[in-house]
């Protein structure tokens, strides 16, 4: 059972109250991008065993989107944060580093 604290309303929401939104921090390329880069944006996703960043929506609650950083192996949640950022904030990175020294995700570390 996964429980994430929605940063918009502060509620500890059960997974079944949430709707998954896939990988976080995708950046659209283009319109002048190469076909390879655009294919990467559309289809190529991380599938890590360990630290991962995701988008979630508090669908049956306040209805708002947010980001979550968690471990896919242990289901440990490092933290949740605003949807209105393009990279994980420093306090989230620090929380991950405290638990998983030397972690890396895409080009973020």
């Amino acid at each position, binding site marked *: 059972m996964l429980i994430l604290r929605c940063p918009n*309303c*502060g509620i*500890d929401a059960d997974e079944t*109250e949430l709707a998954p939104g896939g990988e976080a921090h995708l950046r659209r390329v283009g319109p002048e991008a190469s076909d390879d880069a655009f294919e990467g944006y559309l289809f190529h996703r991380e599938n890590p065993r360990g630290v991962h960043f995701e988008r979630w929506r508090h669908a*049956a*609650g*306040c*209805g708002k989107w947010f980001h979550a950083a968690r471990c896919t192996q242990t289901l440990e949640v490092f933290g949740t944060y605003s949807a209105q950022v393009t990279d994980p904030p420093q306090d989230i990175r620090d929380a991950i580093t405290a638990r998983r020294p030397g972690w890396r995700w895409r080009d973020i570390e």
Partner: protein
Amino acid sequence: MSDPVTALGGMTADSFADIAEQPPRGMVLLRGDLSSAPVQRAAAEVAGVTVPAPNRFEGEMPALCWMAPDELLLLCDYDEAAAKVAALAEALQGVHHLALDVSDARAVFRVTGLDAREALAKLTPADMSPAAVPPGTFRRTRMAQVPAAIRALDDTAFEILCFRSVAQYMADLLISAAIPGSEVGYWQT
């Protein structure tokens, strides 16, 4: 003018908690920047109650319920809703907002009794303990398969708001969760 009718004609059921569909309820949705003074002032003025903190409501009736960081739900008498919308539009002229009469969108049930909290706890993943859901709580969550909001009027009286289209489903859920003999006795001895 036709008379407003509720989804289930005011159904009632006596289980270990009493379940009663409520008469037509006025509901006005207000979206806007809840941290801005004009929106706060307009909401409080038109509703006649203060703006609630997150996951809370203020006033039994009329009431303001906190739906989201940018959304309040005003509860009032059914035939007052249109006037409330007009009053909000007047008070918020020039301020970015949305005020809408959504009275017919939802169904309201009242679940009362010493074990009402336990019947609800069977249906939602939300922590329904008295500490987590004290009187004054407005908790949007899921009840079985559908979204719903739980309004804790006091420790033995709760209102359930759900979409009208799932009113029958909600009634069946509540009745089955409160079937006599299925009391859990976790909070109530």
